[in-house]
C-alpha cells in the first residue's frame, strides 16, 4: 500500500483502510494499483476533497476505471457531485 503514500495518504489513513477490509480485498486492490491511482488522480482533479475517507468508506469505487466514472459523472453538475461525495459516500449509488 506504499503507493497510497505517494498519493497523499498518511500512514494512519492507510492503516485504517487495511484494518477495515479483508486481506482478500486488499490483495485485489494491490493488483489494480494502476487503476486505483488513476481514480485518485481523477477525483483530485475533479475537486473531491477527502479521498482517503472516501476510500475508507467505498473502496469499491476505486476499482472502476476512470473512463467509466467520467461517463457516470457526466450526467451531473460537478459541484453537486463534489458536495455529495464529500458529504456522504453512500450517495454515490444514488448519483450514478
Amino acid at each position, binding site marked *: 500500500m506504499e503507493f497510497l503514500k505517494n498519493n497523499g495518504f498518511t500512514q494512519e489513513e492507510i492503516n485504517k483502510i487495511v484494518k477495515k477490509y479483508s486481506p482478500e480485498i486488499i490483495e*485485489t486492490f494491490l493488483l489494480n494499483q494502476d487503476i486505483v491511482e488513476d481514480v485518485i488522480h481523477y477525483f483530485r482533479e475533479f475537486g473531491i476533497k477527502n479521498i482517503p475517507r472516501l476510500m475508507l468508506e467505498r473502496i469499491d469505487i476505486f476499482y472502476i476505471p476512470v473512463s467509466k466514472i467520467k461517463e457516470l459523472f457526466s450526467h451531473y453538475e460537478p459541484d453537486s457531485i463534489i458536495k455529495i461525495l464529500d458529504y456522504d459516500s453512500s450517495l454515490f449509488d444514488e448519483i450514478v
Partner: protein
Amino acid sequence: MENEKTVIDWFLSSIDSASSALKESLKGKDELTTKIALIDSFFSEKVQEDPTLLEGGAFEQLKNKSFTEIKAFIESFAPTTNPEFVNLVGAAHFVLNSKTGIKIRESQLEALRELRDLANLKKASLNREYAEKEKDSTTLSSLDELKISLTSLTDHGVLDRSIIEKFFQLLQVEEKDKGAYLDAVLKYNYDQYQQLRKSKNVPSIMEKSVVKSQEQLTFEQLEGLFYQYGYDFSKLDSKYIELLLNETSSLQIEEIFQALDENKITCFKELENERYADLYGKRITNILLGSSKEIIYEVARRFEQSGVSKELLKGYVPILIEKVHERIPVTNKHTMKETKPMDSSSTNDELKIYGKHTDFAANLDLLEGLGFDKKTLLERNSTVLMLRHETLLKNVATLSLYEFPFAAKKVALTSLLVAEPTELIDRFIELGEEAYVLNNSSILWKVTNGTFERLYFLKHEGYPYSRELKGQKVLKLYVTRTDRPCIVKIGKDREIEIPDSKIYESVPKDVEEFLAHNPMSQLLDEYVPIKISRETLEDPIIKNLDEKYQATSLTYNLEGVVVSRKKLLRNYEFLRNHLQDNDDIENILMVSAIHNSILTKMEIDNVRKSLSKCYGEKGGNNGVLKK
C-alpha cells in the same frame, strides 16, 4: 537490419556470401581427384601383371634414383604427372609385394617400404581433404535450395521455423548472433500475420509458427512469442521471465495469446506509464501461468453477453486465472506488515491471492439470480464479484436470514462486502432502527468505531440523529463520521459539540460486566453463528418466547427492551450444541439475548425476568436442558 521488409533480402545476402566462399574453396577439388588417382596408380596391378614394366628401365631407374628424390616427388605431387616416377614407385610396390624373387639390397628394401608408407599417408590426407570438399559441395547445394525456398515465399508468407533452423545450421550462425535474426524474423512474421488476418486468408502454413514447439521453452522463443502477439517483452522483469521459462511451454503461451487476440482482449498489451511496468509483468505472467483458452473464452462471452467492454478486464485479472502461481510476488509483504500488524498465528497464506475464475463465475450467477443487473455488476462491482464464493454465500445467507429485501432489489452490493454483518445488524435493530437498516443496507459498509455509541447517546438524550432525504430516513453524518467531532444542531441557529469522551462515559457497559468470565459468552466472542434450524424454532422454550414476547419477525420486546430475535435464536442454537456439564438454560438464554447489546442494569434485569417466564414448569423442561 533496417526494417521488416528487407528481412528476406538480408537472409539472401548472407546466403550468397556463404555460397561464394564455398565455391572458391571447391576450386581445387578436381586437382585432388587427380592426385588421389595418381596414388592409386602406384599400387596398380598392372605391374604385377606385366613385370616387364619393371625389367630393365623401371627397376634400374629405381636403383638409380635416390630415396630422397622419390620421397620428394611423392610429397610434392606436382600437377603434372611424371611417368618415370610413377613407374618407379609402382616398381617399388611391386618389388615389395612381388614373389618374383628379385634380389635387392636390404637398404633398398627398407627404402621401398618407406616410400609405400609415405604414399599411403599422402593418400589418406588427400582423401580427407576431398571429403571436406564433398561436404562443402553438399552445403552449397543446400544453400541453393534454401535460396529457392526464400525467393518463392508468397506475399503473406511467414518465415517458417524449419527455414530459420536450416539457415542457422548452413551458415553456422553463433548462438550470440541468433537473437538478432530471430528478432527481425518474428517482427516480420507478426506483420505478415496481421496482414493475413486482415485479408482473412490464413493458410495452413500458419500452423507452423516460428516458435511452436513442445520442447523446453527458450529465451528466444519466449521473446519471440511476446513480439509476435504484440506484447512488450522488454518491460518484463527477469523474475517473471524466469518463471515463464521454467513453468510453462511455448504451446501454452501461444494458446493464451491467441485466445486473447481472438476475443479482442487487448488491454493487457498496454503499458501507459513506466511506473506500472512491474504490474504489467505481474498481470501478464499471472495470465500466462494460470489461465487457459477455455477460461478466456468463457469470460469474454460473459462480458459480451452483458454488453460490457472487455477493456474493463484490466481490473479483473484474477477472474482470468484459476490459481495464481505461488512464486509470483503478489504483495509487498513488508508493506502489509507495516500497516497491519500480524499476530503470531498469521501465516503467509493470508497474503496469497487466489485465482478468482471459479469464484467470479459462481458469484456472478448467484447475484444475477438474486436480481442484480449483470451489466452493473461487471462495470462497477468487481470487488463483490471477486470475493471468495463461500464468503459471498455466507454474507447472502446472513442478510437473507435477517430478511433483507433481495426480492425488492433493495440490497446494496456493498453490504455483501461486510465481513461479519450480524453484529452490526443486531445493534441497529436493538437501537430501534430495524426498518432503517433493512432499507439502507449500504449503511453496514459505513459503520465505524463509535457509530453505535453516538447513535445510542443521541437517541437517549433526545438529540437529532437523522433527517429526511428524498422521503427516506438518513442518519446524520455525525453518527457515522466518527472521525469528525459530533457537532449537533439544536434548533435553527445553535450548535453544540458533544465530545466523544462524554458519549463513551454515558454508554452503559453493564452487559460486558455481566458477561465477564462467562464461558458461554466467550464462545460467542470467538465464533459468530448464523444457523437457525427448525429444531430450534420448535424448541418449547423458544415457542414460549415467541408467543409471549415476539414483536416482529426480527425483534422481541422483553419488558420494554428490544432484543434482536435472530441473534437470540442463532446464539441459542449454537450454545445448545456446546453445552457443558454445569450449564443451565437460564445462562444460555441470557447470554443469547444480551450478548453484544448496550443495556443498563435495569434493562438486563427486565430481560432476565422475561426469559425466566419462558422456561421452568411452563417452559417444559423444568429448567434443565438435555443434550
